[in-house]
């Protein structure tokens, strides 16, 4: 791909310079690009091709590739009830995390932008909850949810809502898994929205003020429309993150109780490494790739419109 570079290298500019430039430009970009191109081919393109390839087989990891089944794996999982349970759970968890988590950094940044005194301090403080690794957070909350000696249940007991097995009740477990996200949702997201709000030209606010638009109204009628696009972009990446969530679910419930928190990414891990059905797992994962690819294409399209 990069070998063609030299030909386009130099516009005719003048004798010596052109020759020197030609001889340089031919190799430097290739050298600069080569390591990255190689790792991208091996660890992305080959792998996604390979995922599709494996998904066509009843894959045998000891004697690859095993028996060819065509699209059989896809048909099997599309017909299985477990897959649809996982799909439904993934969608519910996604909607729950939008309701519980997604809006938090937007609201935080909106009010942060109104604060003049100690603003830098608050910005640093907003980063602190986000430094707790997901695994550590999941472990902490798993314990806080413990019906016998969890802090969360103790505090609920204080207001009369007795101990409750948050992670053991199929009706509550999805919400319980998503809830910690509310507490840890500061982080870089706040800085992002904050930067977007700060980049709104001041004249806009001034003219709105003259037109009799109060501070609360300005927040909703000037700031919100201006960061709408940032919100949209963030939403799409939030979506792929939420649809592929694995770590916290695996640590807190491993998909239980009774598959109430089984999501597609857990199903992928489970069918490969617990049921040794690599072909099925690859089929599921290729399916997820198609879903995410469609979402990301939409994201790029939106970005272009801007």
């Amino acid at each position, binding site marked *: 791909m990069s070998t063609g570079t030299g030909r386009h290298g130099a516009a005719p500019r003048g004798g010596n310079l052109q020759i020197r430039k030609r001889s340089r430009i031919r190799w430097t970009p290739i050298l600069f690009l080569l390591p990255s191109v190689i790792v991208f081919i091996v660890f992305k393109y080959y792998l996604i091709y390979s995922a599709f390839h494996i998904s066509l087989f009843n894959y045998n990891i000891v004697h690859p590739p095993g028996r060819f089944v065509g699209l059989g794996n896809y048909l099997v999982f599309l017909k299985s009830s477990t897959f649809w349970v996982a799909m439904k759970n993934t969608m519910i968890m996604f909607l729950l995390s939008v309701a519980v988590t997604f809006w938090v950094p937007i609201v935080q940044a909106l009010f942060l932008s109104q604060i003049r005194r100690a603003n830098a301090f608050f910005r640093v403080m907003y980063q602190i909850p986000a430094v707790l690794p997901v695994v*550590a957070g999941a*472990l902490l909350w798993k314990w806080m949810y413990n019906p016998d000696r969890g802090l969360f249940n103790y505090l609920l007991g204080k207001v009369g809502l007795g101990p409750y097995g948050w992670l053991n009740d199929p009706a509550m477990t999805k919400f319980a898994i998503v809830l910690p996200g509310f507490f840890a949702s500061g982080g870089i997201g706040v800085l992002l929205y904050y930067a977007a709000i700060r980049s709104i030209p001041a004249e806009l606010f001034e003219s709105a003020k003259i037109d009799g638009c109060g501070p609360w109204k300005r927040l909703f009628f000037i700031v919100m429309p201006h960061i709408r696009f940032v919100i949209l972009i963030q939403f799409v990446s939030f979506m792929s993150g939420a649809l592929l969530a694995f770590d916290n679910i695996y640590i807190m419930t491993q998909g239980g109780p009774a598959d109430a928190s089984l999501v597609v990414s857990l199903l992928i891990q489970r069918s490969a490494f617990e049921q040794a059905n690599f072909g099925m797992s690859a089929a599921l994962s290729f399916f997820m*790739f198609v879903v995410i690819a469609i979402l990301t294409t939409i994201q790029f399209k939106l970005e272009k419109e801007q």
Partner: protein
Amino acid sequence: MKASRIVEKGEKGLNVTSYMVTVLFIVFGTLPLVWLLLTSVMDNVSIDSPTPQFIPKVPHSLTVTIDYSDVGETDVEYYKKEAMEAIWFPWAALINDNVGEIIINGMKDGKRLFAAKTTSAQFYVGQLAIVPARVVNDRLMALKLPIIESRNLSDFTWYGPDGEPIDEPINEPATSAGEHELAKAYRDFFAEHDVLDGAITAVKQTRNPLRLFDSYASLQHLAFEQAGPLGFYRYFLNSVIITLTVIAWQLVFAALASYALSQLIESRRLKFVLLMFFLATIMIPGVSILIPQYVLIKDLHLSDTLWAIILPHFAWGFVIYLFKGFFDQIPGELLQAARIDGASEFRTFLQIVLPMSVPVFTIVAVMTFIPVWNEFMWPYIVTNSPKNWTFTVAMNDLQDTTSRIRIVRQNWISASGVVSMIPLLVLFIATQRYVEKGINFTGIKG
């Protein structure tokens, strides 16, 4: 100026609300972390109590003097066994009393013969291996002694029969009336169980605030056999090695590639094709290539190595996107000037581009650090032997109740959680300024 400023209607209300909302969010965000910090220094009994305790209690320290003047034995191993019996057996009985350390001073004819010490960091790690049940006899300890020594679960210093004479006579007469409860319980234990050959002459009970932090020290003793002398901290070291290697690759090779893409290739078509080549990979989620990645790593014979975790992180479209967004904004004239002066492309990159790119390099480092440091699924799948675990995998193992080799202790989990926060915390505080600067131009905001 200030005085003449007209306060708008509603401005004050919005101001007050803003502060309140912000403070509230920060309190919500930090509360779980405060709980993590508190429980990391809390004793096991308080942690397991059904009504949560919020104030950590300072552990007790027992200093015991045992006199061996009437014992003829000269073998070091014999006294070692005696010391361990004087520590481990009563401790197992006093397990609910928040013991922080037991120090044994062995005396003979007014001279110090040996000193032994076990902290709660060592005791709770070894508890299941050394004193799983309340069986108290000589033979049991003789069996356990090699384990204690090999895992470094107790400190033992031998002074020999010509040991230093002790200045203050700690051989004060034992008056059970004036003793604290715990010291009395210690004496009572040996009144019931006759395993010690020496005579207990003094038991002193104090409190040692240092022992509050024993859960952190425990991490060093935990996983000693599996991970080597660093114990649990080895996992953090693994994570650090992995994260730094990935960051180094991104800062060097992804930066070079993006720079070439942005400034060195002049054909627009080729530029577009290459850009798409890199960016299209953002669509490929990690889960989707989990299986082939596993097969590939297996075929490369890299399973169960740190490289298995590092290598896949080298291909990150997002980083190329960040870098290119920045390099695109470097004025071409600047680079042209350097070229005319005879600088090679590499030198131009080093001397002109690098110095002005500190914010973007910082933001890439931070954006790389977070996901690699937090990664759980892939290391969990690809590593089998504990010496190659990352801390996320090891933490998950700490809570694993299916392997019956240890008790799940929340203060260890909390302590490792606190330790796992430190690198990111330092990074965030040190780079916040650059990250904020960087966010404005990298185009993440769209």
